[in-house]
């Protein structure tokens, strides 16, 4: 439904480079990346408001690279909703209808169904300035979908909402995607949203796509050091591989399956490193068990990061803050650490 072919965009101080992306019809695709990675710029290239240096954009197979925004059939919903503040809810939703070239029959059925599905019926006559964040977001969705766009672009649609509304909006998006068959390309920096909504994911960093694929691909098997760091695999260490063994400096770990060709790093999530404080639970570590010295501890709210030194290697494990405060682990002590072989990723 959307295809970007080696898209280049050059702005003063920032550039998108060779963006290739393909969102299939009816797919929920999430573009994830840190702040300033160029996520929103990709969306604005698709909408057609930034000058494109090179590359092409296809929507429904049409090359729209040179078309103005009003002829691309793209719907966009921004984080701040960008509602028309001088129009009522109803007039916001109906704004684009006069330009639609679809048959009026379809529109007469379509819009009321949309309003009903988004629970906006009782709000139609209201001014948009006095709506709650969640209501505004639903109006923005209705406005974009009323003209039946080929694809719906979502620019961090949940970030500006209160946590309670956020959950509700997530359900709304899921519902639109499942029951109305809308094709969605969403941009976010939030893992939870991505996990909850995405069918496929692309990771963007400094204007380049670092990795794309299914959730399991990107989060389970990060392909680059940045991808590993971004998805939270903070223990990312150079290693030599030999069959199902990974040799780190002064530490050998067992893998669940042989390392892929050309692998040079080992990645372990902090929460997969288990510091054994009581007697070991059955099966802990699946064979990977080693002794480490506790280093500096950093609080991050309810969890804390515990630095560990094992052999010549420094690792970080995640522990509930409560356990640290309760004195179960103390800096300078020797502890036993276990890690499941299946949780060690060779990259």
């Amino acid at each position: 439904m959307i295809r970007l072919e080696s898209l280049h965009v050059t702005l003063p101080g920032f550039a998108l480079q060779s963006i290739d992306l393909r969102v299939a019809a009816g797919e929920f695709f999430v573009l994830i990346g840190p702040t300033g990675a160029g996520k929103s710029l990709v969306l604005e290239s698709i909408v057609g408001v930034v000058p494109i240096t090179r590359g092409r954009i296809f929507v429904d197979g049409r090359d729209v690279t040179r078309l103005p925004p009003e002829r691309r059939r793209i719907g966009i919903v921004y984080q701040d909703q960008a509602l028309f503040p001088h129009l009522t809810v109803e007039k916001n939703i109906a704004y684009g209808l006069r330009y639609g070239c679809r048959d009026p029959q379809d529109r007469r059925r379509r819009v009321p169904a949309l309003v009903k599905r988004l629970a906006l019926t009782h709000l139609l006559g209201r001014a948009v300035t006095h709506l709650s964040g969640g209501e505004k977001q639903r109006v923005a969705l209705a406005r974009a979908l009323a003209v039946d766009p080929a694809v719906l672009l979502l620019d961090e649609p949940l970030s500006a909402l209160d946590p309670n509304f956020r959950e509700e909006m997530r359900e709304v998006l899921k519902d639109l995607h499942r029951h109305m068959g809308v094709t969605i390309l969403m941009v976010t920096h939030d893992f939870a949203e991505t996990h909850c909504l995405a069918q496929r994911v692309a990771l963007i960093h400094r204007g380049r796509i670092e990795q794309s694929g299914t959730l399991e691909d990107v989060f389970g098997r990060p392909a680059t050091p940045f991808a590993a760091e971004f998805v939270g695999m903070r223990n990312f260490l150079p290693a030599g591989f030999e069959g199902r063994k990974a040799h780190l400096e002064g530490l050998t770990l067992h893998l669940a399956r042989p390392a892929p060709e050309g692998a040079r790093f080992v990645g372990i999530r902090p929460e997969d490193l288990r510091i054994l404080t009581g007697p070991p639970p059955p099966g802990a570590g699946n064979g990977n068990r080693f002794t480490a010295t506790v280093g500096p501890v950093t609080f991050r709210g309810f969890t804390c990061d515990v630095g560990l030194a094992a052999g010549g290697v420094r690792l970080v494990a995640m522990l509930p803050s409560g356990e640290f405060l309760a004195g179960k682990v103390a800096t300078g002590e020797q502890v036993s650490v276990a890690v499941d072989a299946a949780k060690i990723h060779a990259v």
Partner: protein
Amino acid sequence: MNVPGDATSAASNRAVSVWRPDLFAGVALASSLLIVAFILLPLIEMVFQPSAADLGQTIRDPDVLRAIGLSIWASAAAAVLAFALGTPLAYLLARRSFPGKKLVESVIDLPIMVPHPVVGIAILSMAGRDHWLGRLIGALGVRVMGSVTGIIVVLLFVGLPFYINTAKNGFEAIPLRIETVSRSLGASPAATFFRITVPLAWRSMVVGMIMCTARAVSEFGAIVIVAYHPMTAPVMIYERFSAYGLKYSQPVAVWLILVCLGLFVLLRAFSIKPARFP
């Protein structure tokens, strides 16, 4: 839990502070009062020196009425022209970046900096019979010197920057995303401008027109060169002053200042915008 800044500390960045009298505060207060008095007293004195009878008689004088009327309608005409011609430029400056933009902005500000008689001289330099443009418009039957046309041209020249800069600020305050959404919904640039931009920026446009009118009403130096006749109110004040003296110019000045005050109040009323964009 990681929101930086604090609503109440922001409050203290507004001018909430403790006042303690000392020499420094005393000097500040004294010179502030001096300035307010320096500006207000002459105006108040001037307004109250003429008797009510004089004021009444003056406003019934058909010459005075004609001069004030001409000042108002020529200024309003200049404001309408500034609106019609200046709106596209204001929008362009608010929305596009192009090489030489700073220079264009400087050109827009020029009429504010040029001494007023020089404005008149410059416009006559173009419009006189010595210049091809002057001969061209003369051949079309349009006279600039000593005509209402000339007055409006002068007032447009001095008023344009006020309209353009105010309208530009109004356009800049509209988030670009709102216009982008309108485009993505199928509206052309023109449709977006008329259905979204104008309804959201009309207050700034009206304020700009009022400022343009106010600047035009108070113009004297350029008008007196281009058109001593037909007589606008400021020229009449000057003429009465030089021909008959202070006493005879004061009543006309009072009536003109009331017109300006009316515009000033209108301006403040329209400037209080509802804050629509967070």
